[in-house]
């Protein structure tokens, strides 16, 4: 990398032997180097590309192919139905419930986790005793495995679980709920669990972003007599923009594909009634449990297309500026 960088080459050239010999020697040298660079690129990426093609692109192609069949996974698919499976999905009220739940999780995560994480990150970015401990605590839920978190909250929030007992003990018996079974509130309970689980990730990202805010700007602001709030509002937040947008992107894609915690926490009955289904759980319930393999593949393709389009739109309108800024800005 450094040897191919022209800037460094020139800098090296200053201490190198007489300038006159350099052009003659450099040309074949550079050609060989370019060739070697390509060998390296091909040699190092080929295994990864093969794995990527075999385990990502090919299955994706097959998923689309299978989605065009009425197929129960017994014998090879023969009953070609075109896009019927897609039409069926959008006619199924449970799938529409799943779409709605995914939307709730996407927007709920952005609107709740964002402000909470920002507030906590700003607080944790100040110097105080025990700061490291608090940073660690904020990050712990994110490190735990999804299934562990799901089982933990399932136990805490069950009818006779700790959470309801806690409410009783506080004299708030009226608030006791079937948190994971009441069809009207289960999605909000799940949103709460997802927030608890993933807010630590947002905090860590934002803290990393904060550490890139130049100290001199804060000092200059302080000299100008800006309050803490003014400093955050006019210096820190604008400089955090790229970090926030990257986090929004990751959060959105994760929320569209959320599966594990929902699968573990919600009971099958509540899921199949649509109250806690997401596109991913709907896909597994129909693909494997109802043995509708063609239909399940259609749902998988829909999930992929929605995530892909969302990702493209986000990159096109919100991230492009950041990526350009980051690349050109840092290289200078």
């Amino acid at each position, binding site marked *: 990398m450094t040897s191919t960088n022209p800037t460094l080459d020139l800098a090296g050239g200053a201490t190198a032997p007489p300038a006159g010999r350099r052009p003659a020697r450099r040309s074949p040298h550079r050609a060989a180097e370019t060739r070697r660079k390509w060998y390296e690129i091909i040699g190092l990426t080929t295994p990864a590309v093969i794995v990527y093609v075999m385990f990502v692109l090919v299955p*994706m192609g097959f998923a689309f192919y299978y989605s065009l069949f009425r197929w129960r996974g017994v014998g090879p698919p023969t009953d070609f139905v075109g896009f019927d499976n897609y039409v069926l999905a959008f006619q199924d009220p449970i799938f529409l419930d799943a779409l709605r739940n995914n939307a709730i999780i996407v927007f709920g995560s952005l609107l709740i986790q964002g402000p909470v994480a920002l507030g906590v990150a700003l607080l944790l970015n100040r110097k105080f005793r025990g700061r490291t401990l608090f940073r660690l605590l904020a990050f712990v839920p994110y490190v735990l495995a999804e299934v562990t978190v799901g089982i933990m909250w399932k136990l805490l929030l069950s009818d006779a679980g700790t959470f309801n007992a806690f409410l009783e003990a506080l004299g708030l018996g009226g608030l006791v709920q*079937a948190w994971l079974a009441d*069809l009207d509130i289960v999605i909000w309970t799940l949103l709460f669990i997802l927030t608890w689980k993933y807010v630590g990730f947002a905090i860590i990202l934002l803290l990393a972003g904060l550490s890139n805010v130049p100290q001199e700007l804060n000092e200059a602001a302080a000299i100008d007599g800006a309050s803490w709030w003014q400093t955050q509002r006019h210096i820190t937040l604008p400089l955090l923009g790229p970090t926030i947008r990257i986090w929004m992107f990751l959060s959105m894609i994760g929320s569209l594909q959320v599966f594990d915690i929902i699968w573990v926490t919600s009971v*099958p009955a509540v899921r199949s009634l649509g109250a806690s289904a997401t596109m991913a759980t709907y896909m597994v319930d129909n693909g494997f*449990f109802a043995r509708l393999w063609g239909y399940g593949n259609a749902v998988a393709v829909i999930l992929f297309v929605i995530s892909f389009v969302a990702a493209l739109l986000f990159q096109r309108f919100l991230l492009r500026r950041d990526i350009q800024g980051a690349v050109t800005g840092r290289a200078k």
Partner: protein
Amino acid sequence: MAIKRRAGTVLALSLTTALLVAGCGGGGESEAPPADELFKNPVTLTWWHNASQDGPGKTYWEKVAKDFNALHPTVTINVEGIETNQLQRTRLPAALLSSDPPDIFQSWGGGELREQVEADYLKDITEQVKDEVANIGSAAEIWQANGKQYGLPYRMGIEGIWYNKDMFQRAGIAAPPTTFEELNDAVTKLKAINVIPIAVGAGDKWPAAHWWYNFALRACSVDTLKKASTDLSFDDQCFVKAGQDLKAFIDTKPFQNNFIATPGQNDPTSANGLLANGKAAMELMGDWNKGTLDTVAADKEALNKFIGWFPVPAISGSPGDPKAALGGGDGFACAKNAPAECVEFLKYIVSPEVQKGYAETGTGLPVTKGAEAGVADPALKSILEATSGATYVQLWLDTAFGSTVGNAMNDAIVAIFAGNGTPEQVVEAMKAAARK
């Protein structure tokens, strides 16, 4: 994403191999090899069963495999116990599709077996197992398709109501209910002594759906049910009537609070746990329930003292046969290309001695005549009597109709339990799924 990729991979691999198989398939019809060819060459059989948890069931199957190997040293058996859902939903379909199935594997009979036969996955064993089928009787019919035998059951029993005898006594219920009027009366009396009358694990869907199945069994004639299983036609009004009866029954509030979140079994907070630990008085469940109650009971001795069993009560004036019962079993089938020794092993599993040993594990009721002596538990004994006294045993409807219709049916029944479904919607969902 992780799930999507994995499913995609399974599918991709499956298709590739499925195409290969389609290309070079079309082998000859299965026929019994000459007897002197058997056990000559060393063979290895792979065996997938669903007793995945450490316990008497798993230990027993290991012993069976070892005993068979001792009898026939040329046959080595690789045993693998796989959790039911995983086995049935993913492992087995994928293995069959990729033409690399185990030689002998768990088979549920009914709709799924029919699909597997149509795809030419299973070995026709009609000729080899004539004696066994005769000895097992009608239970073996579930493993038939188009009049041919493709598997054999090793466990079969009917469903009924498991109950707490002490609670019945305290509530002043003289005898187990034989009609739904008496059952409703018992529910009222049990409420008066402040216990949950009936526990139901609606969270897992099927335990709730089984109530509807029983109402359908009472509302529909045997002919209607048989026709529904083979043609997947659900036009008879009796299927709507089943939902209406269920709705009326739910309205009497016989179940525990918040049953939509209660799991079925294997967990102290499940419907099973409520009965096993003296919180609920009744539970509708199959013959395997003794084993699952044992695993969740805090006090096994107390459980053994109070537990009893009675058949699902009759509904007076209904066209269904009051002596008909819902039931089901587990069986094994041999893969199409499995060696002939596979069938010999299958026959060994259902031989009276092996079946007697199975009965002694207490995990289910045997199917072979001559194995009854192995049943020691009084509750299981009463199921065995009721099973042999039943005029007609209808296989669990979700198994009989196949996974697709079964799943849609169970979902729609659970909607009635949740208070936002109608009897008509159940039938509509079943018809729609049959077309999918």
